[in-house]
């Protein structure tokens, strides 16, 4: 099956913010399929950049291009408290993928019969992530913009999702904002917002311990 490869082109001079710029890309950035991390201190523009790329927020200046089916998963996304994860999956996912989604839910110990409102933060996050991951369109390139998907998630679930990400790197581009919690976390591709400037750092073997000193 052939599919259009997902990509994000951020042009040099792109400025993001709410009215006034909070970060600017000095050089153009090209991201292709795979996982890219978005790193910055609180309030420096991670969510703003994701929203801009999702086109729910206009850039202050400059331009960018996104190729692929986009999904932006807000950090505070929550479904109705009375509905269960099983029902959410049934309503949102294609029938052919429902069984796989439920299987994944079982493997990461998500109780799909419990109302969403009674789930822990981590389990709500698992529900949202499964809904987004299984909404990916196999026949085309996909862009997943994930805002803090790891917060509240246990290590096992996190590993499971990272494994899924590795397997689907060819037709899914994931831009993941996060605050890593262990130094050895590998980040071969990272968009960093330092102060008011944003740049792309990449390299095999690049880890969080090397990058965190750059954040001011």
């Amino acid at each position: 099956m052939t599919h259009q490869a997902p990509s994000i082109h951020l042009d040099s001079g792109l400025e993001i913010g709410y009215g006034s710029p909070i970060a600017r890309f000095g050089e153009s950035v090209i991201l292709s399929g795979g996982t890219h991390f978005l790193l910055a201190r609180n309030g420096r523009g991670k969510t703003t950049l994701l929203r801009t790329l999702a086109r729910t927020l206009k850039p202050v200046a400059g331009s960018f291009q996104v190729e692929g089916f986009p999904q932006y998963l807000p950090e505070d996304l929550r479904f109705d408290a009375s509905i269960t994860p099983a029902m959410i999956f049934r309503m949102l996912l294609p029938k052919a993928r429902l069984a796989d989604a439920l299987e994944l839910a079982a493997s990461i110990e998500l109780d799909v019969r419990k109302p969403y409102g009674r789930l822990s933060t981590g389990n709500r996050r698992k529900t949202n992530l499964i809904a987004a991951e299984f909404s990916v369109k196999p026949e085309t390139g996909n862009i997943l913009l994930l805002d803090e998907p790891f917060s509240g998630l246990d290590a096992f679930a996190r590993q499971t999702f990272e494994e899924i990400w590795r397997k689907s790197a060819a037709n899914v581009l994931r831009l993941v904002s996060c605050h890593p919690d262990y130094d050895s976390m590998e980040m071969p591709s990272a968009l960093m917002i330092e102060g008011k400037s944003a740049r792309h750092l990449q390299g095999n073997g690049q880890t969080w311990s090397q990058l965190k000193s750059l954040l001011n």
Partner: protein
Amino acid sequence: MRLFRLTIATIFQRNSWAICAFAVIAMPFVLPVISSATEKPLLLQPARILAAWNTLWICSLSWGLFTAAREGEVNAKSGVGEYFLTTGVSATRQLFEIWLAVFCFISPLTIITALICQFAAAPADPAEHSMWWTLNLQYASLFLLVIAPLLALATALASRFGGITGFAVTLFLTLYGLYGVGYLDNMLRIEENPLLQGFLLFSPQYRFADLTQRLYFKSGALPPAAFWMMIVYFAGILAVYAGVSRLCFRTKLSA
């Protein structure tokens, strides 16, 4: 139609619709029994008509508008609207899908009410009976035409100004259109006032869609010309409300 399916499932899961369904089915049979109609069997059927349609109005204006407002507010506040927006579901489409989900609960209630009226409160006289189907059908059509844009308006206002505003404004608007305009009209017959006359002219005349009294007094079906004029009038209101709703509706909280 993923948002439609999600909204349908959410409303279904909350169970409050069951109270409305129970009320619409049971009240037309229970209320006449506990009213003075038991002393005069002749009044039993008119009492059933009143109970059936008034229960439907009450359920639609309370549960229907509240649910529509709640869904609009939740969609904007929970991040669900923003998520769907990024996947290509436009704001217009989201408003339509939420509206359709709520309407899917209201329309069966309307059909049930019309059927109860048709089969459990039809007049015995053959001449009156022949008009009963038409009048019930006319009432159900007008009712749906009135309630449909109000649901959309409740959803849209709630998405921008909050659930309480969405619910209260549409409830007030409906009550004003059902009862307030009648009082205003009577008042202006006694004392003329050009300003209020103009206000009345642009008020939604929902009282014309309430055919309960026509059923109650067995006045027969509306003449086709009058009925179609009302359809056009309420379709005009629908068009205006649809435009206002789309302008007000938003999929996410402003930054």
